[in-house]
């Protein structure tokens, strides 16, 4: 990538202008909030879980174009997945969709905040509803060390 400004391609700008899956779910089964202390980006994710699958997912919050685009893409990827599949989502699954694999270090937190929130929401759900504590610590660690 020749220039850092090239990250602002059509898809990023469009997603930031018209985010997908933006909003709240009234009867969510789990919700989680987190923010980036340095830049103030702030994301909430609500999920509806049916039969161990993410039947609906929405996000809302404030953030830059990178943060909004990545949150949109993440919710698109996650919707319909089983909890196990959702857990397996990796950072390059999100970054790759938007051509952001080589994003500079200072912006990576903008891109991955929503993935951190998703992972945190998943372990919160697992802890509250499934009583399946087997892998909880692993998932918590994964969320904490994402970037």
């Amino acid at each position, binding site marked *: 990538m020749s220039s*850092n*400004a090239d990250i602002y391609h059509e898809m990023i700008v469009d997603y930031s*202008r018209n985010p997908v899956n933006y909003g709240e779910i009234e009867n969510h089964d789990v919700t989680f909030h987190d923010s980036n202390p*340095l*830049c103030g980006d*702030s994301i909430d994710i609500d999920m509806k879980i049916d039969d161990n699958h993410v039947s609906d997912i929405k996000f809302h919050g404030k*953030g*830059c*174009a990178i943060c909004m685009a990545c949150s949109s893409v993440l919710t698109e990827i996650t919707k319909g997945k089983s909890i196990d599949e959702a857990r397996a989502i990796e950072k390059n699954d999100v970054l790759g969709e938007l051509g952001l694999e080589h994003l500079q270090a200072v912006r990576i937190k903008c891109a991955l905040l929503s993935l951190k929130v998703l992972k945190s929401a998943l372990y919160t759900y697992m802890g509250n509803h499934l009583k399946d504590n087997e892998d909880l610590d692993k998932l918590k660690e994964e969320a904490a060390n994402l970037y």
Partner: protein
Amino acid sequence: MQSTESQFENIRDDFPILKRTVRDNKPLVYLDNASTTQKPNQVIDSITDYYRNHNANIHRAVYALAEESTEAYEASRDKIANFVNIENRQEIIFVRGTTEAINLIAYAWGRPHIDEGDIVVTTEYEHHSNIVPWQLVTQDKRAKLEYIGMDDNGELILDDLDKYLATGKVKLVTFSLMSNVLGTITNAEKIIEKCKAAGVLTLIDGAQAVPHMKVDIEKLGCDFFAFSGHKMLGPTGIGVLWVRKSVLQTMSPFHGGGDMIREVHKYETTWNDLPYKFEAGTPNIADVIGLGSAIDYLSKIGMENIRKHEIELTKYAIEKLSAVKGLHIYGTKDISKRGGVISFNFADVHPHDVAQIIDEEGIAVRSGHHCAQVLMERLDVAATSRASFYIYNTKHDIDILVNSLNTVAKVFKL
């Protein structure tokens, strides 16, 4: 004396970093001076000269190097006294920066003097460093922290202060002399007058003001004053705390250790004279000397000239930026009430995106909450972009900034 204009023309030659290019071979346009400033050769050289030729610990040994080192260190204290008009050099304490200065006050003065039910008053446009230390001490003491509000013009609502003072519970009023986000210059005289009448102490955070205008601490009549070296051409890691002697004498030590003691016995210690009682351990000698050189440099230009230069730039920038469609500038447009700090938002584009796109043009502006989240909440924004000027900035820098915003508009289809 040289005319102001020709003086500023040659200033850039003293700053080696301004000669470098960034990104795709673009000349650096440095507009983040409210965060930290660049350093002239004179400051860099004085620090290397200290390490190359004079390095020794101060206040202890009797050999030649130690004498030179102590002399240079103490000479900086005198330069500071002269620069911001402090009569008694014993009232000047070297600290790491404004943040450490305020924490020192909160700990060494606040803890012995603030009791349950007391009030500490700060303002809505403070930096986190003048909020969080007071949250810590007031929570610890079951005291209250109250805020002087800000109007839509970015100025403080001093009626709020009257209301708090009327309770008779206020122990301290603490405020920034210039907002690091809006550039608003606080009406310090008025606040201090009100506080004095009520017998309440005042603390001024001078981090943004001292580098940019003539400050006279004796004339202000506050009780505590703090500022940082790195925002005024000096090195990082060195700052100044001034405390009125009658108040300093009522304070307990901050850090215990070497140099702050008179006599140490197994179970008791007596304290060194002021200001050394508050300067425990080997201090940041080289950077104290570097700060002295920065003061020499600024004094040679003259603070009045610096203020004039920045008023010119700020006027020009406000005019040019106001003409950009969709760009909103925060704070007062009255140039006599603001310094060279301009916070703005550009349509609905997030400040991080603005900063990243114009970074490609070599422009360094700050984006984010500027360590002033209480103010961001008041403005009801998550973040702003901020351009801030100093002696080496030119109208050309502002033209480049304004032009680069066209690229932002193009990318985001504004």
